[in-house]
């Protein structure tokens, strides 16, 4: 799941300021943003009324099934014809949806959300920083847990000096290394932790 946060209305209006007289369509996404309540139907409706309160010309709002996976611009218009009447798309999806729309259409594309993390949904809980897409997966040495994303300092060889009583000094959560130690101990894998891991090979898959 791609975790997004709503931008403030001030930041959105600041982006719209140079094109304030153009017709806007608000575009949500029912996948991650819908689930996280940052870009689903209620949020799109709310955004429309906020923009109207600020005298913006909003023609409508739509919610795409998945803004990150689109067959073609033509098929999108066929499904949501109202989009073609807009001059500006204010997109309430993650950055991938925004980038894809920016690439395939001739409308001006503006994001309404910030994309902050690759997360996971566990029942009602949203877990942040589950993967950093570093391009060289080393979680095999940690029974699936990822220190590169779970540790704010991206440590690969153990906790920093700020890991205190098992807690992370940066985020309000358990230090990922405490979690890794517990999991590896429970699975009789502790000796694996003695291995010194080399620096990540960034860019190797691109």
């Amino acid at each position, binding site marked *: 799941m791609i975790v997004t946060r709503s931008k403030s209305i001030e930041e959105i209006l600041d982006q719209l300021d140079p094109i304030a007289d153009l017709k806007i369509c608000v575009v949500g996404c029912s996948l991650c943003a819908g689930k996280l309540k940052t870009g689903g139907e209620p949020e799109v409706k709310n955004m429309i009324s906020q923009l109207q309160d600020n005298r913006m010309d909003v023609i409508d709002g739509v919610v795409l099934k998945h803004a990150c996976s689109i067959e073609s611009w033509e098929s999108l218009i066929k499904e949501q014809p109202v989009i073609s009447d807009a001059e500006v798309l204010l997109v309430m999806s993650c950055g991938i949806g925004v980038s894809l729309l920016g690439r395939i259409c001739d409308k001006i594309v503006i994001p309404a959300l910030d994309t902050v993390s690759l997360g996971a949904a566990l029942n009602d809980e949203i877990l942040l920083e589950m993967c950093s897409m570093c391009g060289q997966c080393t979680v095999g040495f940690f029974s699936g847990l990822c220190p590169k994303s779970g540790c704010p*300092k991206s440590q*690969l*060889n153990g*906790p920093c*000096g700020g*890991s205190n009583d098992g807690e992370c000094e940066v985020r309000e959560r358990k230090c990922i290394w405490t979690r890794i130690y517990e999991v590896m101990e429970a699975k009789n894998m502790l000796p694996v932790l003695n291995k010194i891991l080399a*620096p990540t090979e960034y860019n190797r898959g691109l």
Partner: protein
Amino acid sequence: MGLEEAIESGKFIVTAEICPPKGTDISVFLSEAALLQAIVDAVNVTDCPRAMVRMSPLVLSSKLIKMNIDTIMHLTCRDRNRIAIQSDLLAAHALGIRNILAMSGDFTTMGDHPYAKPVFDLDSVQMLQVINKMNRGFDLMDNPLEGATSLCAGAVVNPGARPLGFTRIKFQKKIAAGARFIQTQAVYDTDLFNEFMDEFKSVNIPVIAGIIPLRSAKSAGFMIENIPGVKIPQTTVNRMESASEPITEGLKIAAETIERIRENCQGVHIMPIGKHEHTKRLLEMCSLL
């Protein structure tokens, strides 16, 4: 005596720390260094501690070398990728700096530029490996260097960190990666420190224990709140609260701490809050001068 000679000789090592200025006025930094010149083996120069923007330790370490003061330059992984780290290490060697303290660095959000991009391309273990590779004449990617470095790499450890599980593993990794000395987070709880050191009796590199003399009960509170991993026993806080002369009491506590741990470590590292005006007195109190 410089750090490497002190390590070789097996003497009880004394180091002290100075923080570069936030600004271009280096007069206080230099006068602090002059105070320390005759009383310590080497002076640590910090690298934007607590993620606050300050002058580069590279430049100030070089100034100290010119004053014939041996330095231990801190180098963090927070602000540099592997290219910049190696570049700074080559520069350090060229400037005559011989001791590098490799550390992860305090996280960006703790400092005065909370929106800075945290780099952390390498971790401290990997930085130690890089230093040792450069000492053998190669960069991280095994490209030959035109002239190898001769740097003495050190690492940090927080002996008060609990649970010990992973701290123990990382400490061993740092030694395996080529650390030649260890400097620790500030020690107040000597039982925790001695318990940690008992585990590592077989380690044959010097462990230099961090000492921060408290100045007031308030400073104890600040340290507990703001310095990750520092544990100050309540009895110590109480002593500071009831002291009529808190600075003297703080020095007494520091001297007692040194007395209680000196059999279990190979040196002390003095890092006062503020200036070094009392460092000489502290060293005299525990017969280290």
